[in-house]
């Protein structure tokens, strides 16, 4: 049994998609607790492990937005939408991000 478990763990470790899902889950857990720095780190790792993972990109975009890294957040949202164009959740997040970004830009433009 131990051999089987070890083999499964080894398989999991060697499977980037599974590892990315693990990072994603942990990232969501810490994000819910407001630990956005750690969440960002986890989502970044998930994206490195599985660059086609639209959920990881969406979550990374949120973490970047929360930390004020707006250019990178936009890039991550756009990549996530490219991978999953019909995702209502990603689209909604992106729309809300753009709305907030417009507000910020309006304020920046009015700066003396």
């Amino acid at each position, binding site marked *: 049994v131990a051999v089987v478990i070890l083999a499964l763990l080894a398989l999991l470790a060697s499977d980037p998609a599974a590892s990315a899902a693990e990072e994603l889950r942990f990232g969501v857990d810490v994000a819910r607790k407001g630990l956005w720095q750690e969440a960002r780190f986890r989502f970044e790792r998930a994206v490195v492990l599985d660059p086609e993972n639209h959920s990881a990109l969406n979550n990374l975009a949120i973490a970047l937005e929360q930390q004020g890294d707006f250019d990178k957040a936009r890039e991550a949202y756009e990549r996530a939408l490219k991978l999953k164009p019909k995702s209502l*959740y990603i689209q909604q997040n992106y729309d809300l991000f753009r709305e907030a970004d417009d507000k910020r830009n309006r304020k920046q433009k009015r700066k003396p």
Partner: protein
Amino acid sequence: MTSAIGSRSESRSLLLALTAALSLALGACASFVEVPVETPLQSKLDVSAFRRVLIAGFVSDPGEADVDLSPETVRLLQNQLRSHTKMQILEPDRPPLQDALDRLRTRFGDGERLSKADRESFRLEAEKVLQDGEFWRRIGEEFQNPLIVTGKVGFETQNRSGFQTEERVVRGPDNRPRVIRGNRYLERKGFSLNADFVFVDGRTGQTLHKEKFTEEVLYGEDQKVSPLSSYFELMDRLLPNFLGVISPQKIRGTRVLLL
């Protein structure tokens, strides 16, 4: 007959199994978490060079007696800044602009009976004081080079009473509902607040930034609201934007994390 019942029961079981499977599948698909986010918004002005802030007082039209605008605004902004900025809030016994405005009031008079021309002259002279760089540099020197906040505040009562079209549903003899339109006289009162905030560099006397706000509120005939509480209601609306000039703000919202 028995076979028909058996077949119906089998179909129901199948339907239940399908529903359960579908629910599970949907549950698995709907793996998302809504989280609150607070995205930072930089202040409009970089005030890192200032250690102190002085609310120097505000120009208001002579004769406006409903609310003592300048002292109320000074006190409100001091309180707000105390909890939203790290700068020291200077609290002189008399706001420095007050003396200059008092001199103008002595010259032109004050109160309801002031002529339109005198009122206009007062406004022009007060505007000159607000733009007088040398005046603000001297004030800045006296208070050890703070960021100075000043400007103009206006608060007016607005009578919005009048006839308003109303629709009522009545039932005729045949018990059918009919919409009847009519006019009703409504007594409504409103207040408007205009605030022009000016941010001055106390080291040089130069204006750093100007911000204009207008807010309005209308009350129904059954609402008895005093001018002072209406003033605070309107100030409360514009305060986030005022604070956004000198302190970083946050835009609150929600986003959906995916699993």
